[in-house]
């Protein structure tokens, strides 16, 4: 690794990899602060490294690999099999049994009959609970009364909901869009200066940035 023609050359990759020691690193960083070509090269290397880092290889679950490898292979005498992942071979053995479900060939899904639905739980707010059940009346009358009261309640709920929807709709129509106020152009340069001055003592902050910005802002 070496610098070439006054540029970083291979050192750009070494810089990105953190392979340069303190002094060399400092010299390289000072150089790229003033050299557009080398800065672009270092940026490129960083992006490349970042892309590779993000790429990563997805690892399937081990169990899935085992099962996929086991498909189509004859079972051992005792019906079991073990998978040699290194050699991708199936070795019959008695010491590593697998579950019967794994040993069986995969079968298509079979539709199961749906279970008969049980009694519905009482609907919240409809009054079908212990209180309603305790009302003394004959079965047909109870059924008819129940239908009527259900109908009444339904109408009330529907009416209430409609009214509420109307109210909300009216409020929506009448509620104008919030006034967005005056157009603002944030003076970001000045903000940067103020940020540097306020947070200059924080270990990770760079107060010099604000100083240089001050010169720019004041000009």
């Amino acid at each position, binding site marked *: 690794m070496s610098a070439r023609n006054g540029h970083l050359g291979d050192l750009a990759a070494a810089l990105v990899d953190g392979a340069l020691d*303190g*002094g060399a690193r400092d010299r390289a960083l000072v150089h790229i602060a003033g050299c557009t070509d080398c800065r672009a090269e270092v940026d490129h290397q960083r992006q490349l490294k970042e892309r590779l880092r993000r790429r990563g290889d997805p690892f399937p679950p081990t169990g899935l690999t085992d099962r996929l490898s086991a498909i189509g292979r004859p079972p051992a005498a005792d019906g079991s099999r073990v998978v040699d992942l290194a050699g991708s071979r199936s070795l019959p053995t008695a010491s590593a049994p697998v579950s019967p479900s794994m040993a069986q060939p995969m079968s298509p899904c079979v539709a199961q009959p749906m279970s008969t639905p049980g009694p519905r739980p009482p609907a919240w707010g409809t009054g079908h609970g212990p209180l309603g059940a305790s009302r003394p009346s004959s079965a047909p009358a109870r059924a008819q009364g129940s239908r009527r009261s259900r109908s009444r309640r339904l109408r009330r709920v529907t*009416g209430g909901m409609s009214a509420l929807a109307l109210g909300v709709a009216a409020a929506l129509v009448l509620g104008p869009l919030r006034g967005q*106020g005056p157009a603002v152009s944030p003076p970001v340069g000045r903000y940067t200066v103020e940020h540097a001055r306020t947070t200059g*003592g924080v270990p990770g902050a760079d107060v010099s940035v604000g100083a240089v910005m001050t010169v720019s802002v004041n000009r």
Partner: protein
Amino acid sequence: MIRQPRSRAIRLSRMVALVMGATAIGGVAVPALVAGKPTAGARGSGSAALSLATLPVPRATPSAPERHAIQLLMRAATAGRDRTYSGTQYIFSWSTAGASSLVVDLQHVPGRGVLVRRAGALGSTVLDATGAGALDPRALAVLERHYSVSVARQHGQCAGRRTQIVEARRRGESALAGSFWLDTQTGLLLRRELYDRTGRTVRAAAFVDLQLAVPRPWDAPRQGPWDALRQDASAHAGSPMQDDHIAALRRAGWAAPAALAGGLELFDVRQRDGVLHLSYTDGLFAVSVFSQRGRLDSRSVKGWQQVEVDGIRAWTRPGLSQRVVWAGDGWVHTVVADAPDSLVSAAVTAFPASAGESFADRVQRGLHRMRSWADPTR
């Protein structure tokens, strides 16, 4: 079933009453429900305003090695304020917006401040009389709370000087978050590197040469350069607000969360010309949020890069400090940060965004308008 006219009239009147009642209930209940939702401006107002001076002490007593590392950092803070020095420093910053760098010449005279200029440039500016650039002991207290610090076994070199290296790791994590090279002889902070959670360097700054003197002071402006520039700096920054003023601002609808995700704590609040400046730190990184009322003038972000921060439309541009602008709900916010992208996102998502006003807000305003018809005095 035969429907009688009278019973129909009764039913009709019932329905009207029902509608009126429901509307009335809506008028009362919906605003109440809406009021129950904390407004953007009230976020974070539930807790008392925090300042570095009033923050609680660290949870655990630091171990002897940790105390030693803290003492070295405190020594660096003192040295940065009390030592005379001059030199050349580079600063680098990497973020999703791009890489930025700067090389500056510095001169520091105790009690007078730091003069800074771009390397090779003629103009200069003063930062602060108290030794700007020196580590702030208050920030170190926050650092101690969120990070474990230790002294590396190996010594280092920077600007030809022997250094001790103090390393900071987020509590409960093994990855490095920051490294500080401190001059063995003087205690001055000579180099600093900060890393994000993936180990990438996000900021780096170091002296490439350093003298413990100011051999040739730069030409200064004609009259009282240090004092004049210092006053200018103070006028720009304003002064920190007290807790009761911060509470009043929150009541008036300004967003000033006491803490943000990622361990950022509010440590300084200032207001000037209708702009609220909130400063946050986790002890290592610094994030400022500037808020002002209004809507964003699109011309002001012309040429900026439009980005999406956790679903929020924002604009950014590369620079040594990260700068992100976004707007929403009648507010314009600007983040200026020396921090990894994750902490910038934490700041952006904590303030009202451009998703627009919520359904509930609009309904509440409409109902308020309807009530004002019935009662013009409201």
